[in-house]
Every structure is written in C-alpha cells, then in structure tokens.
C-alpha cells in the first residue's frame, strides 16, 4: 500500500523568499505524484503532477517539484513566494496501474508574511 508523509504542518516564510514543502512517499510499485493547492475558502486544484519522463515538473504560479526515486521524495519549491501563495498544499500518490485510489498527505499550511 502507498503512503504519503508531509513532515511540515506549517511553514511560515517571508514574501520574496524561497520555499520548499517536503513530501515523501512509500510504495512498492511505480507511482504517479501530485501536488494540489487549497486557497482560503476555495476548493482544491491541481498545482502539478509527475507521471513519467523528466523528473523536474513545472506547475502553475511558478511552482516546481522534483521526483527523486531513490529518496522517494517529491518536494515542492518556489524561488520567490508572494502573499497570494498563502494556502494549504497537499501531496498525493497513486499507483500507475491496478487501482484509481489516491492517498493524500495531511497537508502543509504555507503562510507568507509581508
């Protein structure tokens, strides 16, 4: 079975500073990896996803993530954050075959400070 760990429940960062939100997963089979974002009082939307190919994935709003198979990680990064990036970020993992089930992490609340 798959599992996802988001070690940081909250990450405060100053505006224009870089940020990294960590995601580690566990799976005995090949996986798809996703980051979703939930802005205050809004629904979840896809930020980016890794299906195959290049391990560096670029998403919306200047975010990117790197799939590292050896470290079973899929950390999310942004070189310079804005106040509007304040939101909750969820990492999710799913198998590439056999099931449509996805496992989500507990989320990381990013707070961008002025």
């Amino acid at each position, binding site marked *: 079975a798959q599992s996802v760990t988001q070690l940081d429940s909250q990450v405060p960062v100053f505006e224009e500073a870089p940020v990294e939100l960590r995601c580690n997963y566990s799976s005995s089979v090949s996986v798809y990896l996703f980051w979703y974002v939930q802005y205050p009082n809004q629904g979840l939307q896809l930020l980016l996803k890794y299906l195959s190919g290049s391990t560096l994935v670029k998403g919306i709003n200047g975010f990117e993530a790197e799939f590292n198979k050896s470290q079973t990680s899929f950390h999310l990064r942004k070189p310079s954050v804005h106040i509007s990036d304040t939101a909750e970020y969820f990492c999710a993992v799913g198998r590439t075959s056999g099931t449509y089930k996805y496992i989500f992490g*507990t989320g990381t609340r990013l707070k961008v400070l002025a």
Partner: protein
Amino acid sequence: GAGVSQSPSNKVTEKGKDVELRCDPISGHTALYWYRQSLGQGLEFLIYFQGNSAPDKSGLPSDRFSAERTGGSVSTLTIQRTQQEDSAVYLCASSGGLGETQYFGPGTRLLVL
C-alpha cells in the same frame, strides 16, 4: 458541466439522524471519488467508482457509511445514525482516467450536533 458540484453546501444535523450528500461530476468523467477533510487530518480517502467496475470501498470508516453512483454519473454518500465525529467537510472529485487530474467540488460541510 462547468465543474464538479456538491449539495448541500452545508448540513447541520442531530446525532443519530441519517444524511445524504450529493455529487454531480464533470460530464464524461469515468472516475468519481469521495474524501473527508477534517482539521489537521488532511484528505481521507473514502471510496471511488470507476466506470462499471465494483467500487473501492476500502476507505469507508464504518458500515454507517455507504455510497452509490447511478448511471455512471451522480453519486450519493449516505451516513446513517450520524455521530459527532462525522463532522467534517466531505469532498467529491472526478477524473477522466488513471493519472488524470482530479477535479474537486466545493465540498459539503457537515456538522453533527
């Protein structure tokens, strides 16, 4: 449709009552998911439907929870004999296939008094 819709948006009920939550997925999406979001708990998988296959009910927390999907479209999540610990936001999502983006509805906020 324009997106995934859910109704009601808010539901307040008394302990012991049954509730039904509805989800209208994006037209043409074969996969439909139900999740529960509680404070500090992230998204908890409940159940998914894919096409005509048997649903994966492995995430349903107890036999008080059940769901059905009629005609491969609309889905209803039913919670019988609600308990206070059932209070949460229930999210529905749909997607077009394996590895495809899940599109989430706005959720139903359930409060059990």
